[in-house]
């Protein structure tokens, strides 16, 4: 029963959903947030993510997530700049980011509401 439900959930995942990224889903989300205000290359992303979320993404994790995002059309390279390669978000990437952020907002709202109820 549980397996059937999980398969059904996986099959109904919207296009570009970050859940299919497994352990790379959180780094992928952070990357999308990082480039939401404009293209960035790898080094700029790691610096931005470190200052924004206090998370130090290792190079293996960063490029593992970048490869997945690029393979699924959520980001695209805009051509090499010296030896660096900036990436920008595609329309599909923007849609995936909005979807994930709204889910997180709903979860955060529910969490806050329940905490408030338990202290009331």
């Amino acid at each position, binding site marked *: 029963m549980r397996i059937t439900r999980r398969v059904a959930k996986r099959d109904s995942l919207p296009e570009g959903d970050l859940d299919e990224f497994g352990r790379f889903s959180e780094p992928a989300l952070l990357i999308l947030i990082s480039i939401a205000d404009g293209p960035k290359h*790898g*080094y700029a992303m790691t610096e931005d993510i470190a200052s924004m979320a206090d998370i130090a993404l290792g*190079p*293996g994790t*960063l*490029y593992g997530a*970048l*490869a997945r995002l690029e*393979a699924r059309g959520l980001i695209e390279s805009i051509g090499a700049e010296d030896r660096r390669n900036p990436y920008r978000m595609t329309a599909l990437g923007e849609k995936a980011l909005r979807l994930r952020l709204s889910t997180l907002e709903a979860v955060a709202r529910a969490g806050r509401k329940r905490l408030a109820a338990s202290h009331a």
Partner: protein
Amino acid sequence: MTGISSALIRMYPRAWRQRYGVEMAELLATRQLSMRTVADLIAGAIDARLNPQLGAPKAVDVTEGAQKMTNVFRCNPAGVSVQDQWRSAAWMIGGSIVLTLTALGLQWQVGQNSFSEGLLYSAFPASLMLSSECTYLKRYSRPARTVMSISGAVLVILMMWGAVAVGYRI
């Protein structure tokens, strides 16, 4: 970029290195290589090999398997030139002569012993392992080839020594 960084990047698949290798090298050049970074890169390389994100699967030519088998039987692995085959032959003949002479010299100096006898028997197989550096191991990096061929030769000598030592006790 340090030698360790480039060795770590070489663990990734070729297609991946061609796409992201330069960028990653650039990123690694900006930071100190810590144990955490090394572990992250190793995990990333394993992931890249298990879950390749790049390129569609290559269409398999029906003659590819037969060609590969023919090459193996002809002792002609891909990428091995005639010059490599001559080098390989030189390793086999030269190595066999050097190891045989060493074993005979040892026997002459210290008398009959299991090590020199084992070395005598393993002269050719150990040289064959050394010669694989320029044939069967050609597709690997130079340091990897060196380590694998020398380790193989040492292993053969140790096994033969062990076998002779056991034979002496029976």
